[in-house]
């Protein structure tokens, strides 16, 4: 069996659609997970009663359970509970919940790095704790926590391949299907390796570039 370039070219449209789906799912989930992270970290830092311990439990639970099982629970389990989501949104929800837990910790880490003097100054100026978070804390926390947040985003892109396990036709899903139906493993596996490496490496290059830019004020 040898590498058949013609076959690969033939499959390009399907693979491109898969790649687009991977990027779509990842982009939506990254955005939503950042929202989860900002809200969750705020609730934790403000020590909101009830909410704060709940979020702590959520983070621990996600950290200590496999993403694949979380995905299966959402896609196969929630419908029997009366909540049915489409394939696409099941995938997005699972990835969002997974990455959201890590974003909570990333933002929290960023908030911890904000100098306490700023909090004291904000209080002296009469800002409420919410105002401090919104105007001072979170903007600074996002800045210092951005590399970690983007790293979680890179992992999310990688882990978006899990959604193929519930039958979504993302890049991995298309390729796995072709292997099963056409017995053309080499071509498809090559596409997968190149495709994901390209996605992950270009995203991490963007992370490094951004990190470099964010350090600009502190560089001479």
């Amino acid at each position: 069996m040898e590498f058949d370039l013609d076959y690969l070219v033939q499959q390009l449209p399907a693979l491109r659609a898969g790649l687009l789906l991977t990027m779509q799912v990842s982009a939506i989930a990254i955005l939503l997970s950042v929202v989860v992270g900002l809200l969750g970290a705020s609730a934790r830092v403000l020590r909101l009663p009830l909410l704060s311990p709940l979020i702590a439990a959520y983070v621990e639970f996600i950290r200590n359970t496999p993403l694949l099982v979380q995905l299966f629970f959402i896609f196969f389990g929630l419908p029997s509970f009366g909540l049915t989501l489409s394939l696409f949104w099941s995938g997005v929800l699972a990835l969002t919940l997974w990455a959201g837990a890590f974003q909570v910790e990333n933002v929290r880490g960023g908030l911890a790095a904000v100098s306490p003097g700023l909090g004291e100054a904000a209080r002296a100026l009469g800002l409420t704790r919410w105002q401090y978070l919104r105007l001072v804390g979170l903007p600074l926390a996002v800045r210092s926590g951005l590399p970690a947040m983007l790293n979680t985003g890179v992992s999310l892109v990688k882990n978006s391949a899990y959604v193929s396990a519930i039958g979504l036709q993302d890049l991995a899903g298309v390729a796995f299907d072709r292997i099963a139906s056409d017995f053309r493993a080499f071509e498809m596996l090559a596409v997968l390796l190149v495709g994901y490496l390209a996605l992950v490496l270009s995203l991490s290059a963007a992370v490094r570039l951004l990190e470099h830019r964010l350090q600009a004020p502190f560089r001479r």
Partner: protein
Amino acid sequence: MIHDLSLLVENWPLLLIGLRATLSLAAVTLLASTVFGVLLGTLATVRARPVRWLVAFYVETFRDIPLIVTIFTIFFGAPFLGVPLQPFPAVALGLSLWGAANGAEIVRGGIQSIPKGQIEAATALGLHAWKIYLLVLWPQALRVLLPAFTGLLALIVQSTSLGALVGVTEFLKAGGLIIERSTVMQGINPAFAIYGFILLVYFSICSVLTALSRRLERRLATQGGARAVHAPDPSSV
């Protein structure tokens, strides 16, 4: 609810078989990750640049490719190379290649956390490079990377669930079989309860390991000396 509980009780043997497969997959992977992690992590600290580059290439590759793709590549690719693999060894191999890359990062961090002055002192005393590793670097590194390897084990346990996708009857797959059987034979779909139960079992195993890892890390911090290597973040592997 009653039905779900009786399902769990009835299918206890199947769940145990699954759990045993999950734990043996994790054990094999931990062993391989430790052995090859120490080997590769050590090679990542030697003087020869080409060696370090090769190790870095290996580590980056297996950390950047989704683990699910690695496992499928091995399982579906092996027959084309004339060596068809059973699901269990294929998954064990895929997990080990990935685990060794993460283990290597931990070990490299552990060795590099040891002050340079010790290497210089050892060199000044006339110790060979390999003796420096054997007598100076490894014994100290092993101490600081124990917490990180415990954390890695929690990740390995979680990753073994990927075996379900290529036909290893591990814990997740066992649950899937129970759901299928009940849906077909009794017309009741217990997916919510069964997958919920499976999540809880993974949670109890992994949270014990995570807590242990944190405790070991704290204990090292209070003992002084070199600081512990951080456990790999689940969102970065």
